[in-house]
């Protein structure tokens, strides 16, 4: 790997041991992928570190103690608890305390404690063509596809990228890896984010780590594309897709395939959409004790929509309704009265966390001597949450669009 003089100085420790450590890991990564050079990154979205995984917060504290500071704008991923209203979801106080410790470590390191999976809804919108380093598959695919920024499917190394301001030019940072591999024809009207999610889940299971190119999608909303991407990255390893005419890198189908002829078309009709949602459904009973909305974290407008659906009504006594969002959307929901409406109805507007990564995971419960599942049947509007919650929380699952989820939260029963 060819390094600039400055990069060599970083690696040799001339700017401190932390940057040398970060560079040494980044060089190893670059070499593994035959990277030829490093690039400067403009932004990083990193894993926060979770008290549920041994040693992670301690490791950050150790780095912070040595003076580690990020050198690019850096946001951070969801954590296992809500630090704003922990008691509303019965978050264990000791876990809350651990993550308050994390918060102060992050402050010390210059990391913005967004605790979000969708930082691009909160002002972190890297321009098309910029190099960034992001973890969180739902964010990665949005950055690459919808914004046209360039990131790999990064993991823990975002931390080192943020400390050095560098990343090896490999994978999706190289233009030749961003071209289409599969052509998908959507032959159905998609009327909800959940249906976009179903399309993503179906296509992801076929294309694996490919770059699907969609035709037949007309004027999707931001929330639709958040679902589409999250699902593509859940059933597959998709980090990038194109919708010619809509996403920025490809004006036409021909351009998406680099003017090579498009491969055989994968059709998606109502049939595949219904079948995908049906296959995600594992519940034998229509009674739901948990309705979760907000994977990926809801935007302000999605919170508004739930408030409108639930205003003046009451969540069923046997059912918990959580709406996952982030602090910035929460602040706006407070100002606009959406939070009040949801709270009065018995719902909880949750920040910072996400069920499948939370203290409600079976492994987290087991550590507290509790046997799970905490909730038996989860109804959600998100195929991503459905798949992971089934695995990590042991919930039986139903997936349906938001208005039907809200109705079920009120009646305690899904009208399938």
């Amino acid at each position: 790997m060819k390094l600039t003089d400055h990069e060599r100085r970083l690696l040799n420790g001339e700017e401190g041991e932390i940057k040398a450590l970060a560079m040494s890991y980044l060089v190893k990564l670059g070499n593994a992928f035959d990277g030829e050079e490093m690039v400067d990154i403009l932004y990083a979205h990193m894993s926060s570190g979770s008290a549920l995984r041994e040693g992670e917060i301690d490791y950050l504290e150790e780095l912070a103690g040595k003076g580690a500071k990020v050198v690019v704008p850096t946001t951070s991923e969801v954590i296992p608890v809500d630090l704003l209203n922990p008691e509303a979801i019965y978050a264990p106080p000791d876990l809350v305390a651990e993550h308050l410790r994390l918060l102060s470590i992050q402050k010390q390191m210059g990391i913005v404690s967004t605790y979000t999976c969708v930082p691009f809804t909160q002002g972190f919108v890297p321009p098309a063509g910029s190099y960034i380093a992001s973890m969180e598959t739902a964010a990665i695919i949005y950055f690459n596809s919808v914004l046209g920024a360039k990131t790999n499917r990064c993991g823990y190394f975002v931390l080192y990228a943020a400390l050095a301001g560098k990343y090896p030019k490999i994978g999706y940072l190289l233009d030749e890896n961003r071209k289409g591999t599969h052509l998908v024809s959507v032959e159905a009207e998609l009327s909800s984010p959940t249906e976009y999610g179903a399309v993503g889940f179906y296509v992801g299971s076929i294309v694996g780590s490919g770059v699907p190119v969609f035709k037949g999608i007309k004027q999707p909303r931001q929330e639709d594309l958040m679902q589409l991407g999250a699902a593509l990255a859940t059933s597959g390893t998709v980090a990038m897709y194109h919708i010619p005419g809509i996403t920025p890198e490809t004006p036409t189908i021909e351009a998406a395939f680099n003017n090579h002829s498009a491969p055989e078309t994968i059709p998606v009709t109502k049939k595949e959409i219904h079948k995908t949602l049906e296959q995600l459904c594992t519940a034998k009973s229509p009674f739901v004790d948990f309705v979760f909305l907000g994977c990926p974290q809801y935007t302000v407008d999605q919170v508004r929509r739930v408030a409108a659906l639930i205003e003046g009504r009451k969540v069923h006594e046997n059912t918990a309704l959580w709406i996952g969002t982030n602090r910035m959307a929460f602040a706006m929901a407070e100002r606009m009265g959406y939070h009040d409406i949801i709270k009065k109805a018995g719902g909880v507007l949750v920040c910072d966390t996400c069920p499948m990564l939370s203290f409600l995971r079976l492994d987290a419960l087991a550590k507290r001597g509790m046997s799970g599942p905490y909730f038996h049947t989860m109804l959600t509007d998100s195929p991503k949450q459905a798949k992971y919650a089934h695995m990590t929380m042991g919930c039986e699952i139903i997936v349906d669009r938001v208005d039907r989820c809200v109705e079920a939260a009120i009646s305690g029963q899904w009208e399938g």
Partner: protein
Amino acid sequence: MSRGTPIQCKGILPGKAKGRALVLRNPISFQGEIDEEGNIVVRGHAYVGESVAGRVLIYPEAKGSSGGCMMLRLLAKRGKKPAAIVNTRNLDPNLVEGAILADVPMLCFPQSDLYEIISTGDLVEVDGETGLITKLSD
């Protein structure tokens, strides 16, 4: 090609390892599909309950959430990491990050069909520097 004949792969991360093969025909995720003790926890999976600890893990490619990298690091801390990882179809940066942190040798892109040659339980040797994988015994 069988016992003793090395198969050339691309060496991704250096290091030598020896262990019993665990051969999976489908992608697997270290986040959610393998637990913190290193056991496969996918319901209905052919190897559900099987541990990846000390095994030479052979499978097509990584999939799923980017938390997988941190899980591999945790497995290393707990002494439950695989001895080596061989991905046959694709190389996922997130998994490579995990393997760097966990110090697990890694190979990719074998020049022969490993699934024809190596079965679960075979004793194999891996060299991440040269990219060679060798079946030592059944």
